[in-house]
């Protein structure tokens, strides 16, 4: 299985967008060397993950891997610097022979029901993309209750049935388009001046990261894939992404 599949160029397309930023690689996270995850190959998994720093951004995590040459996983996250109230960019990609499951979102770091200005700037501005991709086959809510609870009003998730090859690229489009929108926010982002605001952002971004870390194994990747990530490979991936 998997041999004849023309996998989507997830990593290449996401990196293409990132190249407009001045990136510097992060090699250590919380005192741990994360460079072994740059490139790895075990009996069941093969791939690579890297973390980067950029202006106004604490960490960009990006990578992909193949499981038994049957499932192609891709991830891209952008965690803004804590001085900014920018939302978080989260993209998850799980591609099989017959179906692609994905989630892409721009997760608010404040309560976007209350903060109307924030909602207009970061979410409503992306609403045309949300509307555009509503017509994708297999559009559906994110399955994980915990992760769906973090999502914004403009998240896009789907289980796209691959009954023609063009759908692989169609399913990839929301990721690159949401990422483009996110990168545009960076130019106009300004640092937080208000301590109450800083506290609110700190609390919410902390919870989002914590939930995503805890849900990586079992919900973001299934248990069998998680078990195949030998040694501390999974810990390194989680450190890179969240």
């Amino acid at each position, binding site marked *: 299985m998997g041999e004849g599949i023309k996998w989507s160029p997830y990593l290449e397309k996401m990196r293409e967008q990132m190249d407009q930023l001045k990136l510097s690689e992060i090699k250590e996270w919380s005192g741990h060397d994360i460079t072994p995850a740059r490139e790895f190959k075990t009996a069941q998994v093969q791939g690579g993950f890297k973390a980067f720093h950029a202006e106004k951004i604490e960490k960009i995590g990006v990578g992909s891997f193949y499981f038994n040459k049957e499932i192609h996983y891709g991830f891209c996250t952008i965690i803004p610097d804590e001085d900014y109230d920018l939302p978080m960019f989260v993209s998850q990609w799980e591609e099989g022979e017959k179906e692609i499951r994905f989630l892409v979102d721009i*997760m*608010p770091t404040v*309560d*976007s*029901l*209350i903060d*109307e200005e924030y*909602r207009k700037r970061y*979410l*409503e501005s992306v*609403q045309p993309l949300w*509307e555009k991709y*509503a017509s*994708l*086959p*297999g*559009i*559906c*809510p*994110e399955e994980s*209750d*915990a992760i*769906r*609870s*973090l*999502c914004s*009003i403009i998240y896009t998730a789907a289980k796209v*049935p691959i009954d023609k090859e063009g759908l692989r690229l169609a399913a990839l489009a929301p990721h690159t388009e949401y990422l483009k929108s996110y990168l545009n926010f960076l130019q106009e982002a300004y640092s937080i001046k208000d301590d109450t605001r800083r506290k609110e952002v700190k*609390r*919410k971004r902390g*919870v*989002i990261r914590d*939930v995503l870390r805890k849900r990586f194994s079992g919900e973001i990747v299934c248990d069998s894939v998680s078990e195949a990530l030998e040694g501390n490979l999974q810990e390194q991936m989680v450190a890179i992404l969240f």
Partner: protein
Amino acid sequence: MARLGWNDMVDFAKVICDEYKLFEGIELVPLETYEGMDTKPAWEFKAPMASGFYKPYLIKGSDKIEKITIGELHYMGRAKYCALNMTATDDYDLPIFACEFDETAPRVGVTTDFMPTVDIAVHEDYLKKYYSPIAGLWRKYRTIPGFTKEGRCLVQRRYGPWPWARETLSPFSLDGRVEEKEDRKKVMEAVVAYARVWLDLLEKAEPISDPEYKQEMLKRKKTMQKYYRDLDPGGEVMKKIFGEGKHHLFVSLVF
């Protein structure tokens, strides 16, 4: 696509109260004054183009209820705009139970939800406490034809043109457009199933003890109420039919 005649449409209040007996074992008492307003003009109303009722209640012997409103607005013999709202008092952080059920000959547009009174992303305990009891129901009923169509599950999308309204929804909302008669009935089953869970949660609810958390909750709750009372697109039509005063009373009872 089914087009239902007036007599085949859902008798919203009757189905909830008489067929499903949602409030059996609970003594509802009329709420005569709400936010300083005499509610009696809403109990039964009639205008040249519309008639109906919004009946607000409290639960006898309970200090946990701000209002339970059940209502129907019948418009020109062509459309029914129905609602069930259950809101706890400001001492409790229960989500707001909200159901909007708008029926015309070709379809029902419906939204049923537990609208969170705190930011659900931040409060993991809130998610567990109030939403794990409906997670199974959400998975079951989101497959109703209309909520799911041609392999696409479209919940959380009915309020597409109104981002402020989508912000009020939980990740467990059942919303969409349903056409067939049997599916409309299934929607009512879902509404009642959610409402029963809410009443059960109400019974178990304890007042908020943390003043900071209460302040946070109230800020969000009042923002939601203000949004619906000021911005609901149905509001303008109501104003034209009933005038400003009654409009304010009606929308305050419904949300």
